[in-house]
């Protein structure tokens, strides 16, 4: 059943969503391809809309994909699925292993986990920047202009610490001029 499938898939993703939203995009993409909930282009739109909204990009993407796949019940199933693991894991940590963070096991797992998350985020960026990786699609105006805005927004976030909302607004204006 579609709702159950959405719930279980996002539940799995939720348990693995270390490092926040952007690493999760790769996982969502994998599950979406497998089940065919939405097309590649719709997924890209969902990620962009999620980036425009407050809150976690992972949860927002789950909501949008659930909605596109099965309407409001789908949105609820997917969102519950991705949020529930956080609730369960945090309650377990708070109830049992309070001083978990300083332990050897946690430190060494995170030592291996962080580079993998970096890989996942870079992979998500490549997929997002080049949704169609044929030669004709890579060297065209849309890709070029998207990369240009992307580079500007990267610099604005990391170097100048400009508020994301401002960047989104300016990029929308740039889009209207460039495309």
């Amino acid at each position, binding site marked *: 059943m579609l709702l159950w499938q959405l719930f279980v898939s996002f539940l799995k993703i939720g348990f693995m969503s*270390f490092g*926040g939203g952007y690493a999760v995009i790769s996982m969502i993409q994998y599950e979406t391809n497998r089940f065919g909930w939405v097309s590649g282009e719709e997924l890209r739109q969902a990620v962009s809309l999620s980036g425009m909204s407050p809150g976690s990009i992972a949860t927002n993407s789950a909501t949008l994909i659930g909605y596109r796949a099965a309407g409001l019940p789908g949105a609820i199933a997917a969102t519950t699925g991705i949020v529930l693991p956080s609730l369960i894991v945090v309650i377990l940590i708070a109830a049992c292993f309070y001083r978990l963070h300083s332990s050897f096991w946690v430190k060494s797992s995170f*030592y291996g986990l962080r580079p993998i998350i970096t890989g996942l985020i870079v992979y998500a*960026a490549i997929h997002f920047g080049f949704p169609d990786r044929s030669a004709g699609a890579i060297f065209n105006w849309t890709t070029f202009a998207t*990369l240009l805005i*992307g580079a500007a927004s990267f610099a604005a*976030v990391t170097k100048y610490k400009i508020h994301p909302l401002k960047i989104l607004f300016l990029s929308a204006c740039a889009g209207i001029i460039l495309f």
Partner: protein
Amino acid sequence: MENKITQKLLLLGELFWVFFKIGPSTFGGGYAMMAVIEQEVAGKRKWMDESEMSDLLSIAGSAPGGVGVNASAFIGYRLGKIPGAAAAVLGITLPTFLIVYVLSFFYSYLQEVPKVQAAMKGINGAVLGFIGAAAYRMAKSALVDWSTLAAAAGSLAVLLLTGWNPIFMILAGLGLGIIIVRAKKWLGLKVVTEKTSSSGQAETGVIEYYI
């Protein structure tokens, strides 16, 4: 007895409402959200003290999921056990759920308008930059030596070439870290699992996140 139940319900309602208000104000998510939570929870309501706040930050950063949801679950649990955690998480999730829902509703009506399409393409560029910035920040805290650099490059290559399920990559990463640290210790090599600042103190130690 009556009184106790009323008190409990009032607490649950308050938890829900506090996080309901924090939810939509957290544009830019992640650690921007933590400042608002700290102000509300430690400053205004005195629900937690300083040392509990630092526990909160490290747990919220290392548990899976968004920092905001994790932080709300932790605070909710400390104050009202499992019902408290559920109320707080519902509170922080509901407003963004509604915003995303309304936004996508409007977008589905407007997506055929050429100007909206062009603006959306511009926003795609901005989001690409956000993803790049997240990768850059994560790389800064993740790539502390050659083994971590190799692990990052290797995982990217595997994803691009094989199309394996990224969930397995995460599981592999958890195991890999323990194996590498063990092996290095066994070989008598120096092990640095976190980036350290010039004063020799480990930096926050939590995963750096963005949105």
